[in-house]
């Protein structure tokens, strides 16, 4: 039964897509009028409405047939930025190259996206924000959930842009825009060229394949200027890939190459003299190392609180000056993942890119994350912990961190009204204001 509902929803979406891509407002009006006339004229001996129905249906049929013959020979290239931000509109150019022998007239250009319909398992598993407040029927049928899933996967896109006449062999460009609704990878499929048939009811469509990709970074909030507290800690062995070496003594000597030593440290002159690889050895370093811990353990899926938590983490990644310190981002994604930025290592954009792909993990995974953080507490200067809920596990984790003497800033993104001591509460929807008040 559920599978039948799923198939019905798929078919309905396909029908909606078919109609919205092809029919103009006038086309929808004719369709609606013909449908109403059909309902009223179902008994042809009782009213004359069946005649209005046949005329409306004939108009649409003829218009579809004419539109079906629309053909265009053209190539399309997009000029896309590499990154965008969730919720922010970005503009880009689409260049249409006329590869035919006749001028292309009266064309409209629009972006085409990959099929956004979710799979059966995802549709069953997902929970729309606030779904628990919907009535039994809506929860069972899952139509609103289906609509929500499709909507969040589909960026808002520019309406059809008119393209000026393109002579044969020439190129013309139009500017389109997209506004990703959520962070993550945005896959673009093809560019749609369309032209209205003479009645103005139906569009003839041509899809020109032009795959493209934009990474929508998480939304970021403006953080007030603040200095992360804490003192520099001993970092055993330094940071192997660092391009600048904070406070290390210059270099303490040479030694034989051991497997795993970076090429950067090979002392080429000695290598040339001895014939065997020799590397430079550096003294251990002292510098600040901050950890940004993102709690992804939730059973509520990617709801508003989760998205806001990711946005908060992204805001910190963006705000912490990592020229002179290191920033570790820790979260659970199947296993505990650690990404380190700063001092010439990973770029900020890459860290934001990582955050763009973060998804929720099982509630039980928090213990694993807590263990991983506590294991490296000795090296940490300070911790920014972004939590999704407040329970015993999280309380004991925060207490354990406090006991180590690490400077701690705990942010709880939740709709709860209970504020635990020493925790900054951020309500989804007014996170910006909450963060602005941070000192």
């Amino acid at each position: 039964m559920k599978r039948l509902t799923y198939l019905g929803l798929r078919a309905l979406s396909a029908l909606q897509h078919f109609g919205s891509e092809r029919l103009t407002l006038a086309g929808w009006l004719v369709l609606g009028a013909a449908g109403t006339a059909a309902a009223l004229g179902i008994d042809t001996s009782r009213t004359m409405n069946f005649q209005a129905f046949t005329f409306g249906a004939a108009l649409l049929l003829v218009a579809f047939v004419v539109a079906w013959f629309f053909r265009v020979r053209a190539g399309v290239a997009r000029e896309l930025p590499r990154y965008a931000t969730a919720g922010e509109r970005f503009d880009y150019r689409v260049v249409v190259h006329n590869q035919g022998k006749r001028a292309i007239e009266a064309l409209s250009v629009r972006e085409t996206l990959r099929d956004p319909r979710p799979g059966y398992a995802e549709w069953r598993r997902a929970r729309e924000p606030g779904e628990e407040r919907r009535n039994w029927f809506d929860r069972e049928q899952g139509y609103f959930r289906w609509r929500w899933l499709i909507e969040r996967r589909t960026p808002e896109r520019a309406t059809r842009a008119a393209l000026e006449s393109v002579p044969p062999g020439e190129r013309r460009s139009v500017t389109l825009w997209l506004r990703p609704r959520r962070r993550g990878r945005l896959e673009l499929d093809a560019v749609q060229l369309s032209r209205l048939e003479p009645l103005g009811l139906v569009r003839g469509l041509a899809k020109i394949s032009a795959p493209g990709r934009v990474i929508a970074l998480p939304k970021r909030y403006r953080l007030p200027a603040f200095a992360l507290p804490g003192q520099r800690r001993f970092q055993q062995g330094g940071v192997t890939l660092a391009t600048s070496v904070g406070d290390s003594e210059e270099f303490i000597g040479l030694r034989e190459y051991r497997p795993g030593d970076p090429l950067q440290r090979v002392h080429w002159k000695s290598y040339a003299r001895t014939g065997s690889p020799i590397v430079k050895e550096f003294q251990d370093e002292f510098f600040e190392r901050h950890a940004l811990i993102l709690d992804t353990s939730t059973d509520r899926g990617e709801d508003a609180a989760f998205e806001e938590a990711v946005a908060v983490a992204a805001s910190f990644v963006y705000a912490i000056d990592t020229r002179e310190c290191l920033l570790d981002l820790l979260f659970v994604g199947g296993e505990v993942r650690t990404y380190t930025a700063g001092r010439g290592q990973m770029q900020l954009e890459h860290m934001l890119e990582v955050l763009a792909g973060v998804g929720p993990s099982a509630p039980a995974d928090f213990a694993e994350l807590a263990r991983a953080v506590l294991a490296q507490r000795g090296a940490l200067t300070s911790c920014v912990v972004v939590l999704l809920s407040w329970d015993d596990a999280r309380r004991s984790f925060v207490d354990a961190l406090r006991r180590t003497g690490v400077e701690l800033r705990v942010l709880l993104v939740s709709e709860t009204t209970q504020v635990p001591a020493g925790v900054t509460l951020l309500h989804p929807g007014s996170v910006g204001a909450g963060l602005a008040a941070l000192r």
Partner: protein
Amino acid sequence: MSLPPLVLAAALAFWGWRSGNYASGVLLALLLEGARYLRLRFELSYLDFTRVAQLCTVIFIGLLGYLFASVEPPRTARAVLTTMLWLPAVLAPLVIAQRLSTGGLLPLSALFRYLRKMRERDPDYRETELDFAPIYCAICLVAAGIPNQRDVFYYTGVVLIGCWALAGARPDHARLAPRVITLVAAIVLGYAGQAGLSRAQAALEDWVSDWYLSGMDSNPYQSRTDLGSVGRLKTDESIVLRVYPQAHGDAPPKLLHRSSFTTLEGNTWVARRAPMSELQPLADGTSWPITAGRGEHRTRIFTRLENGKAVLALPEGTVRLEDAAALLMRRNALGAVQAEFGGDWAPYTASSTETSADYASPTDEDLLLPRQERALVEGVAAKLGLHALAPREAVARIHEHLAGFSYSTYREGSILPGRTPLEDFLLHSKSGHCEYFAAATTLLLRAAGVPARYATGFSVQEYSKLENAYIVRARHAHAWARAYVDGRWIDVDNTPPSWAEEEASRAPFWEGFADLLRWAQFRFTQGGPLQFGVGGAAVLIVLLAYFVWRLFRGKRAAARLAALPGARRYAGADSEFYAVEARLAPRAPHESLGDWLARIAPTLDGAARDALAQLVPLHYRYRFDPQGIDASERRALRAQSLALAARLESANG
């Protein structure tokens, strides 16, 4: 898409002409098309449009309810169709409001409650504005098709006005020739389609009625029985007849006959050589003589109709039908009377006498034994010694023999191979329902040389105190035999009398409640049409006038604004700050907000001044900043403005 000038007037005139509402059509055409050319404009907000839409909804529902209560059956179809016919008049206020508004467009959320709720909840909600006129034009064309005038003018009108309206959707690049060719193709295809559709429906109706009637009990030519079927017979509690004996203290007829059949073919009884002939009413148009003679008993019966038709259930010896407003009545020689009334229930009064019955005289068909049952029936007849008995004695002997059988509507297993259902009934199980008894009686009588027929109808056995009448349910359908004894046909019902109690015991526990509903529905369908007098109309007109006055009062836009064709609402027009402004000393047209506030500041208290100092920059940004303000600022503007407005209101008393 925007409508070319005068299309709406043409559509309304067309609707007025086709529906016969000439005056309404012309009046609406003048109002709606005239509004386009008037310079008068009103500043209508989203709330005003919502009120107009709600008014239209109230009129629509009121009209539908009124029509449902007052039209003749079939009510639902007629009420819906008539309401749709009047839809252009019902929706006219929306188009007038749109055309008289300064924006010239209708906010979509005014039409749908769901969108209104979304708009209230979501500060980022983006309103969609639409031109309602093309939709209204389509509604007029559809409504014009509801009066069933079978001529070519409806299609012609739809085509002409439709093509004219579509001129508004013509793409700039479309050349005339391809456009005309496409339109002509659509017109020709549409015309062919409508002709084909009519024929297709006729063919479908023929096919469906053949199929439908073949399985119906109300078919006077054949009756399919459940002889030999396994399991429990399905019963239906619905009421099909209401019987009112006319004379006080008169018992109702025990059996009401509908059809008789002569030949058993397999499981089906068929009426052979019994063509229907039309009955002619008397001068009053409601009395239908069936045969000569005077009725001694009068029985008033209400019968439920299937598609307006019924095979009438009649007492034995009915000589005349009275008070039957039938369109057509036909009768066959076996006594089945078919009538065509229209509606859901039809009343008639049957006059009957025990001594007279004009049924066809016996023929060879009435003595025929089916080949597969002949040996069995003759065997049983020989065992009972029926051949030697006079007809009346044979009837009594058969009755005596079958009295030892039991009544049952349940059959556990299928009949063993090589046996017929009747053989199983007569020789083995000796248990069955009325069809077994009736068939066995008929065939045994025939074996005894007594002409007999298989009769179907209803048994009258249940009296309803609620209705003060005998009610006959579908499960009271019954079968019995008719025997030709002493020169006349008599009913022979050998089903054990216990069958009535057994059937009644299987009634569901909610039957009483269901009967109450059925009775209410029956009473409702028998009620007369409601009258909507001059007084009602006057009250309605006064209410409407008051509503229109309330809606448009003080909303007239400045002439300057109205002079701008297609003037739109400006950004930030819905700022709640205007509610604050309205409650303070008036601002001169040339004054900026800052100047005005500086002027009136001395009249305000400190708190109000502070609140205004915070609100004005926010309002200015909402009004003029191309970036706008974010959701939280928008909420703050709304909340603070409304709070201040409320405070000023209470301070002003």
